[in-house]
């Protein structure tokens, strides 16, 4: 212990990522115990049952959807895209934080990421899963989804590659695949750990198979390091590309309120913004319940909060530019759309999103707020809501009152719109809570790298 302190003093760096006192052993024990413990915490059971209920609602909703058609939703002419696409964009956005943390921060050697990247990646995966469902479900004839893929068919036809929806298909599937592989690769060493620590044979067998014979040999580590670096490199552009492509769905269209060139950065920023909000919303309760404050420290929350603040400000800037451009364009339609957003039938939603995404966010300037986990949690929740509203307003208000006054009509969601939306939240929680129960939610071996011993060795080896 004593030398440890000295080392710390000798090594002047930022305040430690994880609170002092951890050893390799304690870390491994604490994290793996969450999975290997016999009794399941009440908190877990409570949330999980909620998740299952919502999941059932979701299944009911899509069964009816497939039986009757998208007519069960509130969409109509002219608002032919409603909740489905809103949710799609929202979920995809949330996913981004995970990839950012795991890939970009890895490349940037941000060691603090090590204790949050695992569940952030999981979050990404499940968010993308939820997102991916909507483009399929919102189709009039979902059973023909594969017509969007280029494959040799008897019709002698190909998809129409000028359509952003086709780009979406590729962007999202690539993203899902890379995230999955990256995540699983990172799991290998820890799966091995669990394999070696589980008492019951079944568990051992399962973790054993999943660990793919990881023995921690230096050769393994070598390959692992290279692979994860490569994947990180591969994933990094995706962080930017995916939401850029998603934003094309709107910018390519001539609809006033959609048709603008700054959507890509605007959407990417918004994505990371909402993503980190979700990270916090998940991290704060988890560290509390599982007593992981030592591993997911104030520093993590603080950094996440700062990133939120930064991206949030970009989004705010985008709002301003959006309004400015509408005026600057001199286009009747653009101006009328902005005016309608602020004063028309969706004014409520618009000002609500401004409040959530811009006004309340400013509180993060204060260290007091950033260090108060409860407040931070609430702010993050608010941001999630705000970002959903943003997508809703962009999509619906633009469609509701575009060019021809004669066809203006406001959109009102039906019961089934809500059921499908909350249903996917159920799906997300369901998957996520299975994950934290069955897999280490924090990367054991990566956190171990943060322990002073690790560094000592490094220095010794120099």
């Amino acid at each position: 212990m004593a030398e440890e302190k000295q080392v710390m003093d000798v090594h002047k760096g930022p305040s430690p990522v994880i609170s002092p006192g951890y050893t390799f052993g304690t870390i491994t024990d604490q994290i793996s115990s969450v999975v290997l413990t016999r009794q399941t915490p009440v908190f877990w059971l409570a949330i999980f049952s909620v998740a299952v209920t919502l999941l059932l609602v979701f299944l009911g909703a899509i069964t009816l959807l497939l039986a009757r058609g998208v007519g069960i939703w509130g969409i109509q002419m002219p608002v032919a895209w409603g909740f489905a696409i809103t949710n799609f964009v929202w979920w995809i956005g949330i996913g981004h934080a995970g990839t950012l943390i795991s890939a970009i921060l890895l490349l940037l050697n941000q060691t603090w990421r090590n204790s949050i990247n695992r569940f952030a990646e999981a979050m990404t995966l499940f968010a993308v899963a939820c997102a991916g469902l909507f483009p399929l479900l919102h189709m009039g004839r979902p059973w023909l989804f594969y017509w969007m893929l280029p494959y040799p068919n008897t019709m002698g036809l190909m998809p129409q590659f000028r359509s952003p929806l086709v780009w979406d298909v590729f962007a999202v599937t690539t993203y899902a695949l890379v995230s999955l592989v990256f995540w699983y690769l990172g799991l290998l060493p820890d799966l091995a750990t669990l394999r070696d620590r589980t008492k019951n044979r079944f568990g051992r067998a399962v973790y054993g198979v999943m660990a793919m014979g990881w023995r921690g040999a230096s050769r393994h580590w070598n390959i692992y390091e290279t692979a994860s670096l490569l994947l990180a490199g591969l994933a990094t552009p995706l962080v930017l590309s995916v939401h850029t492509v998603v934003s094309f769905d709107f910018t390519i269209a001539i609809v006033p309120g959609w048709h603008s060139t700054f959507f890509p950065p605007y959407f990417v920023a918004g994505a990371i913004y909402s993503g980190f909000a979700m990270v916090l919303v998940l991290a704060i309760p988890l560290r509390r319940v599982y007593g992981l404050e030592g591993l997911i420290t104030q520093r993590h929350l603080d950094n996440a909060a700062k990133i939120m603040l930064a991206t949030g400000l970009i989004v705010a800037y985008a709002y301003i530019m959006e309004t400015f451009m509408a005026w600057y364009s001199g286009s009747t339609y653009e101006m009328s759309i902005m005016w309608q957003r602020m004063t028309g039938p969706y004014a409520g939603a618009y000002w609500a999103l401004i409040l959530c995404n811009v006004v309340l966010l400013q509180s993060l300037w204060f260290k007091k707020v950033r260090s108060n986990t409860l407040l931070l949690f609430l702010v993050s929740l608010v941001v999630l809501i705000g970002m959903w509203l943003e997508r809703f307003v962009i999509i619906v208000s633009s469609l509701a009152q575009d060019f021809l006054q004669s066809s203006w009509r406001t959109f009102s969601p039906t019961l089934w719109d809500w059921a499908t939306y909350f249903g996917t939240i159920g799906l997300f929680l369901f998957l996520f809570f299975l994950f934290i129960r069955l897999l280490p939610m924090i990367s054991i071996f990566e956190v171990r790298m943060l322990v002073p011993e690790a560094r000592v060795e490094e220095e010794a080896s120099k």
Partner: protein
Amino acid sequence: MNEKPKFDLERLRAILAGKRGREYWRSLEDLAGSPEFEEVLHREFPRQASEWPAEDAAGRRHFLKMMGASLGLAGLAACTRQPTEHIVPYVRQPEGLIPGRPQFYATAHTVGGLATGLLVESHQGRPTKAEGNPEHPASLGACDAFSQASVLQLYDPDRSQALRYNGEIRSWGAFETEIRKAMALQRASGGAGLRILTGAVTSPTLGDQMQQLLSELPRAKWHRWEPAGDHAARAGAMLAFGQPLNVYYDLRNADVVVALDSDLLASGPASLRYARQFAERRRTVSGQPGMNRLYVLEPMPTPTGATADHRLPARAADIEPFTVHLAAAVGVQIGNAGTVEHPEWQKWLPALADDLRAHRGRSLVVAGDQQPPAVHALAHAINQALGNVGSTVFYSDPVEVDPVDHLASIKELAADLDTGSVKLLLILGCNPVYTAPADLNLRERIQRAQFRVHLGLYDDETAEVCQWQLPESHYLEAWGDARAFDGTASIIQPLILPLYRSRSIYEVVGLLEATPRLEGRDIVRSYWNRQRPGADFERFWRRAVHDGVVPGTALPTRTAEVRYGWSGTPPERGGFEIIFRPDPAVHDGSFANLGWLQELPKPVTKLTWDNAAVMSPATANVLRVENGRMVELDHRGRKVRAPVFIQPGHADGCVTVHLGYGRKRGGRVAAGAGFDAYALRTSGALWNDFGLNVRDTGGSYELATTQGQHVLDARRTIIRHADINSYLADPESAIQDTAPPRELFMYPEVKYEGYAWGMAIDMSVCTGCSACVVACQAENNIPVVGKDQTARGRAMHWIRIDTYYQGSLANPELFHQPMLCQHCETAPCELVCPVAATAHSSEGLNDMVYNRCVGTRYCSNNCPYKVRRFNFLQYSDQTTPSLKLLRNPDVTVRTRGVMEKCTYCVQRIQQAKIQAEKENRKVRDGDIQTACQAACPTEAIVFGDINDPNSRVARLKNEQRNYGVLADLNTRPRTTYLATLKNPNPAIEAT
């Protein structure tokens, strides 16, 4: 009317509450039998649009199939395999019939007894579509919404399908024996107890039959009741000339037209003809002057009013005083007209009078059928004073057989029923229990006749109180004849054998004759044979049937002198005025069960599936009610509850209600639609009356309109308009072109060699009558979606009439704009479709491939005109057998989840092209007529090849006033519009 359904739903929910799983399903199935369930079901989702299939077995199978499909198997082997189908050739093929090619037969459709000539398209014996008959004076090739929808009526599954006695099915034989007995008794007494009630009859044959019968049975009586007939016009003629004369007009010679509460361009037996003539004088091709001028005074905005150069809202009762002043002003000797208080009138009358006097012999004053006799008499006087008779106004003997005062006639019947002198009552082809004045209370009275027979298309309100309900043959199923507005007779030729065991009115009257005649064809033919005896009859007959008009049957014009000295009876004023009008969509209620018409957005109001208490914004203010508020209309003690609809441009202080709704036994489509305005209509005041009290009940009711009332945003290039003089002076500045210059286009220009299809729509002559909407629906198998879906904004019409307002709420200027797929050359919809289901053709068509569509709806989002329509649910009815016969085999029937839109009737284009290419020639201009174009009475819609400089459409597109809607988006629409030109009177404009 609005509570009841709610209650039903409540009940259903109650029954279903607490049921779970299988039990729930079972109880649903049990329920399915119960009447109120059916009722609710079919109000919410009418027959043609059942949202229900998902619930029944087929639906579940469908669902399973889809689940299987969504596993990724669809489109692969299992599903592309064609099911085995059969071909059923003729045994002996009819002559001249080419399987796979439609044939056209001339016939005629009657509304209120008066005929409109039609050419009906038949596919291997199935009538599918009605077009106008160019040879027929009342059609001139155009076709109104009623005639279009009459084809749907033929296949209406709710038609009365079997002869019933007290509700039990009987054979015609049974009825024949009964009626013979009854007639035998009557013959003994000279027909003292025999009463026959029909609608207005112009059929020479039927008239002849009736006169025969009455001569045999001198004491029998033939009563007439036409709920929306031109009673007042006839009375007016009596007043003016002392004899019932038929009046009709020629608008070709009219420079100035004054319509006094008359919708002559869009309703009435000759409206198609008048609209055509009006348009001929309205159109200013390459700016040649000579445009006519139209003044309209009316309470409720009509297509005619919307087209007018000057429109003045006025209560129905104010028309008479105005006319008196006008008459005085143009120099008719009618004593002292008194002084004019109304400020607007002070402005109008002198200007109007000058304009009329300046156009002696070339002007026209028309009084509306719903105006009191005095106004008609005054109009006659004015026209005579202006020397218009013989140039714009013509008189002839009445077209109706043995013209009687319908009101007196029905009253007399009511009285006789009270005395019990009526033994045998035959109600043929009309529905008096529903349509007769409320105070006559025929529902009770009719039941005082011992032997009651009703012949009708539907088992309706009247059938309910008659022992015998005889199914009537539809006009497409039976022989007959009828006269048009000017007396021209047409032979009504059937296109198909009766679908059910039904008979025509001719055959039923034939039963009553001493020697019963049963064959409709013989009855009609023998009559005409007596008119045209001789060897050449066969030729005459074939020709008459083939052409659809009997040559030389137009009634000779008459001259008549107006006798003065009558006086109108000013109604005692007090309270609000109630105004009754036939509904533009369902007329007097006889079309109430036709989904096409129920869902047709009514001209101006855009209301569907309901009638309403229509009032002006100011009046609504006074009453403190908003749209959809339920009010109680209390007219001299008679009460109904009705939803409020606020219509800018409606006259203040009056409420317009439309007839034909609130049917009790109208069929499943009509069920629950609107309220019954007949309940307020008494013999004292058939069309308008004061003494209406409006009480706010606090309840509200959802009215399904297809668009809001939008004030025109001048900055958007949607409507372009100018007045004729400034346009002729300087066309360029009057109508600017907003399309960006082509040089600015980044991409290489696409060349269209060969054909380049395009359309031009002249908004100066479009009256917004909406005939095109129904024509399109009939041609393209467009489903009816029901009120619920329409209210959600999911109506499927491929062409709609957009209406915009400009100016004051009290009296705005209205603009109609038919809006359909613009077939943009740079179509925004095309590049966003992920599967290329909508793509550009080499002829500039924006093709829509239903079977490729996966339903992302992105194309619709990106369509600035919002003309694309999506099958959010399974809308097209694929279960009702009779409706399958109605389908146009040349157009795909779309299923759920597929986008659709106007195709410029590509099936007709292909047909014409194939024909032309077989003859190695180009398609000639006019070979192709889109359905909307064919129906349009004013020829406002013109379609053709814009690459051919001599085509009509190309010439129209060269007009300066030709512009593209939203052309500033560089969509390069192939459908362009000719700006509205108006010809206002400077004298009125000035102030």
